[in-house]
């Protein structure tokens, strides 16, 4: 097992580290070129496959995708965002060879446009964007919402509106991934009263008549392994199964409450009634302090955050519901909004 990944209990069963998994010679030699052993790679794949609840037969496909001689092009564009999604993604990078091989995401793709990290600026950046979006088939990753009115002036970059930048970049994309709750559902800019007329990527695609495969990866920000896992899955095997909100079911099928270790006290008590009370120290359920876990679909309580270090409830704060549509404006008990107001209903989702 990859020690860096704290694997969820529920998904350990279907996948085992298989010494006999067949990798062709070309794949193995390309792995070695990347400084990664066959065994180390299999252990990485097993970790990823476990997170995604994949069958073992997928491992060679993951290997082939991860070591393809020409790397798939990924174009990452930012609109009305806070850079938190990219910060989160960066937390999945690690470049020291040796035992950590989570760096595969960077070896596996060619990140051809990303404004926060790229060397090119200004004219040279714009020129690069034109070049990389002229070859069809790239994965377009988008973070941030976009003001629906092109001439509002609320988003302009390189002299072009958000609408025009997105439309042009979407044209030749093979897949669009909306990363984060702002891109997936409108997020903070769209919170009442939506001062800039912000819309999500799916809304903008509908209004522009863009028909392309779309995957929403919500979360404020999303868990890095979820972002990389979705990209890896797509490269290995095409579109993952999606729910009605275009979320990959492999990561968003369950609520964070379902797999939370505090769930037991939700059934039987004791609940934490204030922060730092005796029950809070015991790990009592945070439902009465406003936890939105029962209504929030995400993998925080299984994959956890920052290489399995912790997650919001483990660190004493209820879930604020950040992966759900319109979570900033959720109406709770007694018709009130608020992260410290108890959910209107006791359980499951809406």
């Amino acid at each position: 097992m990859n020690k860096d990944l704290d694997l969820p209990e529920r998904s350990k069963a279907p996948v085992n580290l298989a010494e006999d998994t067949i990798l062709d010679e070309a794949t193995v030699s390309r792995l070695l070129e990347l400084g990664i052993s066959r065994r180390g790679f299999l252990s990485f794949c097993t970790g990823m496959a476990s997170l995604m609840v994949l069958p073992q037969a997928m491992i060679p496909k993951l290997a082939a995708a991860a070591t393809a001689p020409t790397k798939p092009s990924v174009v990452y564009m930012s609109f009305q965002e806070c850079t938190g999604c990219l910060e989160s993604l960066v937390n999945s990078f690690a470049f020291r060879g040796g035992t950590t091989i989570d760096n595969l995401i960077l070896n596996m793709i060619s990140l051809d446009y990303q404004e926060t990290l790229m060397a090119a600026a200004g004219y040279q950046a714009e020129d690069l964007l034109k070049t990389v979006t002229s070859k069809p088939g790239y994965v377009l990753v988008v973070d941030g919402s976009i003001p629906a009115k092109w001439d509002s002036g609320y988003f302009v970059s390189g002299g072009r509106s958000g609408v025009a930048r997105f439309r042009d970049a979407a044209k030749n994309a093979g897949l669009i991934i909306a990363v984060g709750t702002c891109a997936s559902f409108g997020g903070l800019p769209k919170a009442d009263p939506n001062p800039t007329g912000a819309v999500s990527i799916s809304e903008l695609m509908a209004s522009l008549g863009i028909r392309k495969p779309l995957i929403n990866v919500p979360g404020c920000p999303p868990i890095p392994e979820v972002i990389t896992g979705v990209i890896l899955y797509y490269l290995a095997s095409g579109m993952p199964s999606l729910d009605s909100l275009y979320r990959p079911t492999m990561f968003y099928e369950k609520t964070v409450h379902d797999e939370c270790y505090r769930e037991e006290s939700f059934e039987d008590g004791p609940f934490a009634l204030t922060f730092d009370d005796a029950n809070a120290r015991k790990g009592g359920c945070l439902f009465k302090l406003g936890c939105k876990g029962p209504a929030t679909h995400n993998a925080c309580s299984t994959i956890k955050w920052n290489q399995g270090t912790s997650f919001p409830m483990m660190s004493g704060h209820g879930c604020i519901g950040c992966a759900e549509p319109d979570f900033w404006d959720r109406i709770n008990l007694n018709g009130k909004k608020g992260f410290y107001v108890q959910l209107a209903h006791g359980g499951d989702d809406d």
Partner: protein
Amino acid sequence: MATPNVIIDPVTRIEGHLRIQAYAIPDGKGGGTIKDPGLSASTMVRGVEQILKGRDPRDAWAFTQRICGVCTVVHGLTSVRAVENAIGIKVSKNADYIRNMMIGAQYVHDHVMHFYHLHALDWVDVVSALKAIPANTASLSAKNNPNYKPNNGKLPDAIYFQNVLDRLNGLVNRGQLGLFANGYWGHSAYKLSPEENLLLVSHYLEALGWAREVVKLHTIFGGKDPHPNLVVGGMPCTLSSNTGPVSEDKGGTSLNTAGLAIIKKSVDTMKTFVDQVYLPDVVLVATKYKEWADYGATEGNFLCFGEFPDPALVKKEFVDGAIDYPAGYVFPPGVIWANNLNGLFPFDESKVTENVAHAWYSGSDAGAHPSVGSTVLNYTGPAPDSASYMLDESKRYSWIKSPRYNGQPMEVGPLAHILMMHARNTLDTDKQVRTGVAQYWTGALKLGFDQLNSTLGRIFCRMLETKIIADQMANWYQRYEANKAGAYWNPNTFTRLTQPKSWPKSVGFGFTEAPRGALGHWVKINPTTYMIDNYQCIVASQWNAGPRDAKGIEGPYEHALVGHVLADVKKPLEVLRTIHSFDPCIGCAVHIVDSEGQPLVQVEVNHSYRSLS
């Protein structure tokens, strides 16, 4: 003014969306000199403060935190402090120790990543690194970073650097340069040797792996990073009743034996990398680019709100676990005027104004205190999507408002912090500033103290304050660890929010020194509904990146570019160097909306007691 011939849009390797326009008088060889200030413009807005109206003040931190995912802790915490200040709630020692550690971790993480991932490529030529001789790079590494052993616990050798080189060559051979494509490689302003370039590229890659380890401190205390959780009245995390791993049977929290060990390890990892890699690398770059101490000066006015209440100065402990400090902050609140670098003047919050004369907001052109400011989004710029799109500095041209102090533009950030500490010269950390400046800046580099007001000075001061904070982290951790069974949250907080008669004031002011400088939030809570009536932020990058004011006085970015000599106006590397030296955070700088324009009353602030009122 002539049509701008230097345009950078998008400015990359920053947070947010920034456009720079300037005019360089041509030298006839493709280059030129910037004689007059151009303009700095932000071209994205979301309206976070308008969204906050009518919300529960306890929730505000989560909204303001999303102003910026890079400055993820400080906006949340400033909001928490503003609400605590408004309702008169004191927080416990543990809460302050943890907050110091979280802000400190953010500084170290941000500043190191800024140097390597946002700024280094202005000084490091990646293509030149391909020509490096690995064995010579290993010798250089042993000399420059003698204690840094990333090679399985050993010094990196020729094979190690050959491996880095192979990876770079792999990108080139595939024709997929990815993030390194279309840089200004081969530009005549690059001066490092191939070996120096390869060494720094190697550290660029390694710093990514380091960064994700050190943020685990935020994860233990706040449950995730970016955007860890906070709470008004203290911290949401608390000591685990169960020292072992959390489980359904045994419960517990992240603050168990393993969690505390992760915090300790993060603290140690920060210090090691700063001492072994970041500090010597900054000195190496500075040695080769000394002339950049002659460019990029601002007008010489500096401002600091103050940060890191010093636990050694705790004066009084209350029965509920809360504490009071005397006016003791590692970074002192203060003002320095007109390059009088030894004159530290007191900071007076009532002298802060915001000006919208050149920003896309309607409202009076006269500067107004944030407590009485009124602004409405009002875009009057050119329509986008046209080849002739150009901004005009004689009109409105940015979503950033111009903050002024006593009517003057001020530089904020690491340079300001270091100058304040140097001028105060009382705490041990102040002495550390003097030692660091004497050893490296005026010593090894033989630069004048007043040359700190420069592009290179900003880079140096950012490193020096990182070193000071990385050293302080162990101190804060030790004090927290000794007191970990104590209180984390003030249980009166939520009830006090519904008792307006107990509130000491009608407008709360919270401040933080963010990694990019002075950050203040103002909140007015409605005494009947207990919801937010009005919310205003004045943010670090707003001070530095803001446009001209009603008097036509330009902002610090705009001022700092005057005098720059460009080798090639089509590749304005020199402009990027100075803009990046400020570490722009433009998502932060743009956020102001207050559609109602209801006046807030005068804010009273006692800086000795921060939010402890």
